[in-house]
């Protein structure tokens, strides 16, 4: 078991290289029963286990991961964090997440490389500037930082964009959230896993759930590839495969699984110093510490569980990149990959109870799973421990479509062109 990381442990291991660093988290055999089982060892599942142990004193927890830690969406996203939301229910939740990001490296004793480099969303019409002004005002009323920038200010900060008269989408301004930025996503998975393991949580890798066991309307455990494990409280945090796992409990959900692709170029010297998003098309990029430009766009557009992207979406994202940043036409693409994400009809997530007693759902994250990780873990842990919604997640319910309470922040659900 790894003790705390510090300058002293660093020096000690540098001076004695023959003594290897201990494993960051333990790899125990599964017990026959636990107080709580979390299905899914991604960012959200690990964060939930950590906050259950730390905030609620429940330490007899198993996190069941079908592959290895960091193999899913926590290692496939574009690492962006932001809290520029304006709809009630989203605003406070994502701001809570931003506040938790700010202290996360200290909290976990793991350097998550949280970088508040700021995000600028570019407006490409006067109407969009007005819409961003409204968004910024609502954010500021909620205590979230936001600044409206005009074209000249944007030109100073982002001199590499296309400002020519021929620009297809002229830059009219931008909304800037200075505290937004990036976080090293692998470190989030490893940091939560290590911190949870130190509190006694069992992280069980290569353990795929094949059935959810019920007694009437009550959950009693799960059947896995490593045997039957019993628990009266089971949390599902498997975004991408939420429908697949929920079906084991007989649930049908407002979720479709779609592939979102991400891209990284060869490393170049520092040029993009912010997170830049675009108002003309769903497109966002940042530059990693290694120098690669990391960027992405829309989902491919049809439901699939394969992590292989389609070429027409690659072409579309490259067109966005070279339209906005002409210099990118001379760069080479190093890698691209896909992740399967839950898409919900309104583009907002679920953190809620289900019709089955003791079965809790965390999923439907659409494009916003990574940035939500700490707040998702906090509120999901609260809900599992207390069997009731936290103040911050009560809008993320499963019945919100029946009640006409959709949280349609951007109009980017699974059927974007219908909205």
């Amino acid at each position: 078991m790894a003790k705390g990381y510090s300058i002293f442990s660093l020096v000690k291991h540098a001076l004695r290289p023959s003594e290897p660093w201990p494993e960051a988290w333990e790899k125990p055999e599964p017990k026959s029963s636990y107080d709580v089982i979390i299905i899914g060892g991604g960012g959200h599942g690990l964060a939930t286990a950590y906050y259950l142990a730390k905030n609620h004193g429940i330490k007899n927890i198993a996190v069941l991961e079908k592959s290895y830690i960091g193999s899913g969406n926590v290692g496939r996203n574009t690492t962006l964090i932001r809290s520029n939301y304006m709809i009630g229910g989203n605003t406070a939740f994502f701001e809570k997440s931003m506040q938790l990001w700010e202290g996360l490296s200290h909290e976990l004793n793991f350097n998550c490389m949280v970088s508040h480099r700021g995000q600028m969303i570019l407006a490409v019409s006067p109407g969009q500037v007005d819409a961003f002004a409204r968004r910024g005002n609502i954010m500021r009323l909620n205590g979230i930082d936001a600044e409206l920038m005009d074209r000249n200010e944007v030109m100073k900060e982002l001199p590499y964009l296309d400002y020519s008269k021929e620009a297809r989408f002229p830059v009219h301004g931008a909304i800037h959230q200075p505290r937004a930025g990036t976080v090293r996503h692998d470190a989030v998975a490893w940091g939560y896993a290590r911190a949870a393991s130190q509190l006694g949580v069992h992280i069980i890798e290569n353990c795929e759930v094949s059935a959810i066991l019920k007694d009437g309307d009550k959950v009693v455990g799960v059947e896995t590839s490593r045997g039957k494990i019993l628990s009266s409280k089971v949390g599902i945090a498997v975004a991408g495969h939420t429908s697949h796992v929920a079906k084991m409990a007989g649930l049908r959900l407002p979720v479709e699984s779609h592939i979102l692709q991400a891209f990284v170029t060869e490393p170049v010297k520092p040029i993009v110093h912010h997170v830049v998003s675009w108002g003309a098309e769903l497109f966002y990029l940042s530059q990693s510490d290694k120098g690669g430009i990391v960027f992405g766009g829309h989902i491919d557009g049809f439901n699939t569980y394969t992590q292989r992207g389609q070429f027409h979406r690659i072409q579309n994202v490259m067109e966005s990149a070279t339209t906005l940043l002409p210099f990118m036409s001379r760069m080479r693409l190093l890698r691209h990959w896909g992740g399967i994400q839950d898409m919900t009809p309104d583009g907002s997530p679920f953190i809620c109870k289900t019709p089955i007693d003791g079965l809790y759902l965390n999923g439907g994250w659409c494009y916003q799973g990574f940035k939500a990780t700490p707040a998702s873990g906090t509120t999901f842990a609260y809900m599992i421990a207390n069997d009731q919604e936290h103040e911050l997640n009560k809008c993320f319910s499963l019945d919100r479509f029946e009640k006409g309470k959709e949280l349609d922040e951007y109009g980017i659900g699974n059927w974007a062109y219908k909205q």
Partner: protein
Amino acid sequence: MRVPCPHCGERDVAEFRYGGDASKMRPTHDTGDLKQWHDYKFVFDNPKGPHLEYWQHVYGCRQWFKLNRNTATNEIIGGEK
């Protein structure tokens, strides 16, 4: 992915638009049962495996047709006009 259009033959997926689950039945127009409409509009089977679905050949013949595709592999199992 290559999509077999029953009218034009096999073409790249870029020529097509996806139209969703084709096994869903639209409730009759005079149905007052909101639960039925909710399930039709908002709830998805979303299976990991064979899925019967609508596609439209927007950059070709513009016809709608049904396709049976395995969502775990994107393999096309069959299609119908």
